[in-house]
């Protein structure tokens, strides 16, 4: 037994130049490559990669074709950290939107982005989650409390407000920029 160790010791002392010091992709990088190559985008969604070599930072554009937000175009930024998939990516909405679950700074309240994230989830799961937010805004857990209250008490007014905001205009004292397609 001891001889094996001494053999190994000799080896360690004399050969530092191992075969090729090729940098290896991290586990997070391997996983995101897989996630990205297997994206199965609904036809309402588009991805934009500012740098095709950087699979960790990208944008998602959602153009809902039904529901309150039909006709609008909403952009989300994704930042995938080295802790992926142990930690979820950071997602922000870059389009100002009148929505119960998205605040005016672009923070998004989607359970799988924070408290319910699991490593088995993928970028695709988040995309479906975000798309669902536009089809079924959830007034129960609001980030934009005003919008949520309107949705709960007066669906018609909410619909009008969404339309107004997407065309570009004021809802109360907040100005929304036009985001129609």
């Amino acid at each position, binding site marked *: 037994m001891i001889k094996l160790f001494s053999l190994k010791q000799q080896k360690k002392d004399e050969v530092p130049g191992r075969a090729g010091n090729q940098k290896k992709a991290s586990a997070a990088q391997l996983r995101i*490559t897989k996630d990205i190559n*297997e994206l199965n985008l609904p036809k309402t969604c588009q991805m934009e990669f500012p740098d095709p070599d950087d699979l960790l930072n990208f944008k998602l554009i959602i153009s809902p074709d039904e529901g309150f937000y039909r006709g609008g175009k909403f952009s989300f930024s994704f930042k995938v950290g080295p802790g992926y998939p142990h930690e979820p990516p950071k997602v922000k909405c870059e389009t100002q939107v009148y929505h119960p679950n998205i605040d005016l700074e672009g923070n998004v309240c989607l359970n799988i982005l924070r408290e319910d994230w699991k490593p088995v989830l993928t970028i695709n799961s988040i995309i479906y989650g975000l798309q669902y937010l536009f089809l079924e805004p959830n007034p129960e857990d609001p980030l934009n409390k005003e919008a949520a209250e309107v949705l709960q008490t007066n669906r018609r007014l909410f619909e009008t407000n969404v339309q107004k905001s997407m065309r570009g205009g004021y809802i109360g004292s907040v100005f929304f920029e036009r985001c129609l397609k």
Partner: protein
Amino acid sequence: MSTTNWNGRWFHLRKVLERGGPLAHPDFQASNETLNFLLDNCKILVVGAGGLGCELLKNLALMGFRQIHVIDMDTIDVSNLNRQFLFRHVDVGKPKAEVAANFINERIPLANVTPYYAKIQDYDQDFYSGFHIVVCGLDSIIARRWINGMLISLLTYEEGELDPSRISCQQMYSHADHFVLTAFSFALLCGSIIPLVDGGTEGFKGNVRVILPGMNACIECTLDLFPPQINFPLCTIAHTPRLPEHCIEYARLLQWPKENPFGEEVAIDGDDPNHISWIYEKALQRANEYGILGVTYRLAQGVVKHIIPAVASTNAVVAAACALEVFKLASTCAPKLDNYMVFNDTDGIYTYTYAAERNESCVACSQIPKDLFFHENARLSEVMEHLSTTYQMKSPGVTTTDKQGRNRTLYLPNVSSIEERTRPNLKKTLKELELKDGAQLIVADVTSPNAIEFHLKLHAQMDT
């Protein structure tokens, strides 16, 4: 520095190493050479010089290990002093690795600890392949995953197949514990397996595991075992706070990016008292609005930095178990921990040891890199063709890693914006794409649960 041993210093080690016994491993051969190996040759890397690191260094050095190297990127904070006993008040602000190494070298005769005040990522395969055993006392999952990935990347395979000796290792491994160390020593002879002993603590809980890269469950295999980071729902933080933590998260996540109190794009620095004071005051205001008690400066710092109180006794137990495993691995004097021990001293003392299973589709250790043989003038499209025919892939995406370790996308068919910009690569030759012999290609395809690693074997002359 004392340069002499006291009389009978190795008396107890000799009892263990120079006699056989019913509890010794069947493969163990009593010999006086083992002690010399531990003293003179065995090179150990201690990763982290914090709560566990201080204990580990002390334990290993007193046990007789001399070629100890320690790496830590951190400096000493006053809050470390209660348990990181190699540091004194005058050391606050100095690098942990250097102060710890000096202390051990001064205090323990013939100890030779080499410090590295650096990030683990600053060193490459040449550095890590120089150790017999790596032992980690880390508080970061990212760092664990990195070390794990590094040690797995040191495994050598022959022509895309497991080294023949390694296949027999694995067969033996699956049969009986008796063979484990035979297999293990075999692999050691092959030289590519570096055992990783990983300790971790969180308050009154801890764990120790022994990882033989490529042979048993690795960090990535059991990634789901790490407790998830506690994240509160954003809507609760924004509108229905109930806990002091909710108020602190409100200040950190919503107020900070809005108000940028220390200038645009200035991120929160958990070690900057001004930043923490700002968070604390904002959180306190909010807590008062909602009648929530318990927001303190310390809690604010704790939440911002994700601090989990460290308990000195838990660290001591976990580090002792790690050091013992290092000793067993280095000397073969007893069967090693197989392979995951949990420890809990919240209420009484509880331990449980079990063999964590390998994940068949682990992204890190189930990968046996396959070789791809091509002429350097072959075009990327030929490689893609090969992947579709030989490996029956449907629409493979291929990336590689450059010298700086950054990703480079060669071709990714499924995302139109990337496809358009990488399409010209298909017509380029591997030489034009600056792919060298031995380059790592990462191939992702729906037909496999993970991205697959290939090694490019290039030749300049066409073989017949």
